[in-house]
């Protein structure tokens, strides 16, 4: 092929075919040359990185594996000059780290909850698995109810509902129980539900012209709540286990999973509320978000545990774990709300217009067009919040709830295992466990992010 550039004109006679790239940049050597030793700075950094690994890794491996003690029944095994990690300590305390003070003969219930959770969660996380709708229903609706009954034993004694507190019904219905159910409670429940549906209908009628939607919604909420209460009221013959007895990884996971699952929808609702055109909704959302973001989690937990009872009427004393759960969920929801708002703001106006021009309603537009895109955009930040939530669960220690780390610290005080390496071993183990969970979430989020990124797919 001869090209002349002298005369200024050029007409291509044949089109060039694509050629493979030059061999320099392919293969392991090409990769290293390009990524590790491409410049002096890069070479220096690479060498420094290798030095750091060489400096840290051998002692770590020696402590965790080579010098570690693997068998033994008490502290004697782990005493000595050059002893590494004392794994028998973890082995001896393992049950305590997982279950806390959950009665030993009832621990199968916890195992069952873990097992069912895992069986339901895995197909939910694998995006290509079919039956997502059924799976979500099982995991997000049926599983929490089941877990609640299994873990606490169910059989809550539903005796007082709204009207009962005012002593209105007791006189009429008495304490009659029909087929093990408190007649008074259910009469109370039905009347309260009917009243609320009527109020919802009136409000809907006045505000939007038609109260049917609001009334149906309220009826559904009450029906759901009724089924829930009914199920929790049934005596399945399970021994009652107070949440005070729960502990270890069980509590960590209960708080983290409940926090994640409840804060997400709440956060989305708050984000939408904050961007709403209705000033009162917007104002309430802003106040809620700014309040929870402005208060440290420790303060929230302290307030919920020690100060809230002072404001509640005598006799009303919500469960300690429940209070911590609500605190953590609301706290996280505020952060999620801001993250989601960021995502919503990144969606171009054209997407809203495209959806509106097709006649989609507001909720359809949000559900089908805006939120799927906004949430995909903010997956890294959402998972960031969840990882942070997972690690913050350790803060419940200050309100005397013994989560995984709390149990570990309690285990340190056992004189049977008092050795110089107990503390290091324990924290190394805790570090590994927390890392596995957090790293798992992080990797999963990366996977989902890549999977859902269709906008730039070529």
């Amino acid at each position: 092929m001869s090209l002349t550039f002298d005369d200024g004109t050029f007409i291509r006679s044949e089109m060039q075919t694509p050629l493979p790239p030059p061999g320099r940049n392919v293969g392991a050597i090409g990769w290293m040359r390009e990524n590790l030793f491409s410049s002096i700075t890069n070479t220096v950094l690479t060498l420094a990185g290798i030095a750091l690994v060489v400096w840290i890794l051998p002692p770590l491996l020696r402590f965790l594996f080579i010098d570690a003690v693997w068998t033994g029944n008490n502290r004697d095994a782990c005493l000595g000059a050059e002893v590494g990690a004392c794994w028998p300590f973890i082995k001896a305390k393992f049950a305590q780290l997982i279950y806390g003070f959950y009665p030993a003969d009832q621990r199968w219930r916890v195992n069952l909850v873990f097992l069912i959770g895992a069986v339901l969660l895995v197909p939910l996380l694998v995006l290509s698995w079919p039956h997502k709708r059924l799976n979500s229903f099982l995991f997000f609706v049926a599983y929490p109810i089941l877990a609640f009954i299994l873990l606490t034993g169910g059989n809550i004694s539903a005796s007082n509902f709204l009207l009962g507190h005012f002593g209105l019904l007791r006189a009429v219905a008495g304490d009659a129980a029909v087929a093990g159910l408190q007649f008074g409670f259910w009469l109370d429940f039905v009347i309260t539900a009917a009243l609320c549906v009527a109020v919802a209908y009136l409000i809907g009628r006045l505000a939007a012209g038609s109260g049917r939607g609001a009334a149906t919604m309220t009826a559904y909420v009450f029906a759901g709540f009724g089924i829930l209460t009914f199920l929790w009221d049934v005596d399945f013959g399970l021994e009652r286990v107070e949440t005070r007895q729960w502990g270890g990884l069980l509590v960590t996971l209960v708080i983290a999973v409940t926090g994640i699952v409840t804060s997400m929808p709440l956060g989305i609702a708050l984000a939408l509320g904050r961007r709403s055109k209705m000033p009162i909704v917007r104002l309430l959302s802003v106040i809620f978000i700014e309040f929870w973001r402005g208060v440290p989690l420790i303060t929230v937990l302290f307030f919920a545990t020690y100060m809230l009872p002072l404001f509640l009427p005598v006799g009303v004393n919500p469960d300690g774990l429940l209070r911590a759960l609500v605190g953590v969920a609301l706290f996280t929801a505020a952060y999620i709300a801001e993250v989601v708002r960021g995502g919503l703001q990144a969606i171009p106006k054209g997407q809203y217009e495209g959806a509106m021009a097709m006649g989609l309603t507001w909720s359809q537009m949000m559900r089908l067009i805006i939120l799927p895109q906004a949430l995909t955009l903010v997956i890294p930040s959402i998972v960031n919040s969840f990882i942070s939530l997972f690690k913050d669960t350790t803060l419940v220690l200050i309100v005397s709830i013994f989560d995984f780390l709390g149990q570990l610290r309690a285990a340190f005080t056992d004189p049977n295992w008092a050795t110089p390496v107990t503390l290091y071993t324990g924290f190394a183990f805790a570090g590994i466990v927390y890392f596995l969970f957090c790293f798992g979430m992080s990797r999963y989020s990366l996977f989902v992010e890549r999977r859902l990124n269709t906008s730039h797919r070529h």
Partner: protein
Amino acid sequence: MTEAHSIVPSDELPAVHTAPGREVAVELVGVHKWYGEFHVLKDINLRVKRGERIVICGPSGSGKSTMIRCINRLEEHQQGSIVVDGVELTNDLKRIDEIRREVGMCFQHFNLFPHLTILENCTLAPIWVRKMPKKDAEELAMHFLKKVKIPEQANKYPGQLSGGQQQRVAIARALCMKPKIMLFDEPTSALDPEMVKEVLETMVSLAEEGMTMLCVTHEMGFARQVANRVIFMDAGQIIEANEPNAFFSNPQHERTKLFLSQILH
């Protein structure tokens, strides 16, 4: 004057179809709109008959986009009345939804949904708004995708298509709702020159079928070929409206003459 794009011949453009009773598709009477203090639309009066094809042109900021966006309530007008397909636009959400179901719209930047495939983009509104079974909606979508000549792209994502293809999908998506009126807001302004033609061809074939169309565009070749009327807007008001031959060959208003001399050369 050079015709920017030669389009398929269309001698057989149907005459304006006037069914008795509801021959008016869109009627704007004394419409005013303000953006804060800025008066964008000033006393707009426009009646579009069924089957009529209107091309709206004018300099940027003249309010032409705002005007057609008022027709499906993407913008709210503050004074005057807009009646679309016999329904007057008010704050009533039901009426707005009713009108949006009957009015299709194509945008300058296509506004396809990037997280959905081409087929899903097209079936979304029929399924959720028209409550059509998924299978029927897909058949309908494939019908219109064939019509805009890209059925083979149905399972790709918008990001994988060229601009011209995306705009044709946008047209197909709007058609899937079987609209009575189509609004085009500068559909070719964001396209490479090579792709303008394919979109205009699609629009011409739509016009040949008797669709009521309001197009904001600067494609004067298109205006000459399919428009029943060309409307020139400036400073938020209609300056001149005429049938295309008279409009281009013999503009009356000074502003129109200036505008045409700038864009036709």
